[in-house]
């Protein structure tokens, strides 16, 4: 079971869990704040809409197409 951190909070998830699911398991499920200040969460679930983009170990990644791995440091956009 991989253990990762999301915005500094540790979270252990089942093997094969996507980061999009982990956002909901570890908090509100939100990934970012839009240009006009709205909170957003994954929409399309399949790598098209880019709503679920987060920073993983310093790189921008789509949460819905990224599997959780041990030691990942994930930051959402506040």
């Amino acid at each position, binding site marked *: 079971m991989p253990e990762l951190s999301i915005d500094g909070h540790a979270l252990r998830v089942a093997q*094969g869990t996507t980061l999009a*699911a982990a956002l909901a398991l570890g908090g509100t*499920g939100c990934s970012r704040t839009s240009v006009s200040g709205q909170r957003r*969460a994954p929409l399309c*679930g399949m790598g098209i809409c880019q709503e679920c983009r987060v920073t993983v170990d310093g790189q921008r990644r789509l949460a819905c197409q990224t599997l959780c791995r041990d030691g990942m440091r994930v930051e959402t956009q506040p």
Partner: protein
Amino acid sequence: MNAHVDLLIIGAGPAGMAAALAAANADVKIAILDDNPLPGGQIWRDGPQASIPAKASDLRQQIQDTPNIQLYSGTKVIARAKAKQLLVEDAERGWLISYSTLILCTGARELLLPFPGWTLPGVTGAGGLQALIKGGLPVQDERIVISGSGPLLLASAATAKANGAQIPRIAEQASWAQVMGFAARLGQWPNKALQAFGLFDTHYRAGSHVIAALGQDRVEGVRLQTAKGIEEVACDRLACGFGLVPNVELGRALGYDVHQGALTVDQWQASPLADHYAAGECTGFGGSELALVEGRIAGFAAVGLQSQAQALWPERQRWQRFADQLQKTFALDPAIRQLASPDTLVCRCEDVAFSALAMQPDWKQAKLATRCGMGACQGKICSTATQTLFGWEPPMPRPPFSPARVSTLIHLEESQ
């Protein structure tokens, strides 16, 4: 680690896997690129809360066991570097891959249309919800309303229920007459009839559609238009998808023809562009059975096994008739185009409201005046929406086709 392969396949869903396995009968080097972590496409998405059919695991195993097929998962196409060469990127690196023959199996995405409240957290696509649940999204004891159009609504509801959710309402925009007419004809495709009855849900209502998602910080309810009037249903999630849209962007950028929103192919699944084929939902949606047979035809034809390809034409025709029925049944009610209110955001990346777009004559003017389509998704969501709402022709895709790292783009220099 730039590479050359004889046959490159983009997409490892049913069509892509079937194409690779058919082509592997010839002595050719094959690569499959797929942007998801695991092969299977959308329909056979695997995960901690998914159960994939035996057919899918069997194909996956065969791909793994076939020495002349190399699968690159988590890999996106970023640009066309030059003729028969693509720039691609995965989580670690970017690289160039060239090919002698290409088969596009890029699948389809959901038609997501704007309505008041659709940007609230907790609102997803219908297939989107299913994908998220399969990937481990917890929905135990949540109330989930599913709306939109097409057989995907029932499939999404079944996945949600299997993972402990309650489904107070499934709202299908097509009329009861359309849906029942479709059901009556399903006997021609017995396995599809069994699937449909297995998925049927007593909370299903035809002739119903979403008017608004309600809530402050996240969705708390949904307002629906039903045959009997307006209904409000409290919910923890709303999953809404109005059907499927073929992913034609890469094909268009490579010079494929597009007709009625799908890539144009002939009876060999070949495009008018020499050595470039396409199969599956990117050539028009029709379900996994059609995608599988199209993939096999493309795979055989691409490596010169014409007689094996031709032997599959009758099977393709049978599933094509099913696809035609689907399209007719779930054609969009014009009311669906009127859901957005003036302040509803249409472009979710740049937060551009309906009222700012309604006065524009076309996509290009809208983009110049409002930044619509200039955000991270590069207009994939809003150009599809504005095509449906205003009839605007979607833009010609420009590289990078997905957000990419500069360290990836630098590889373009090596192709010169």
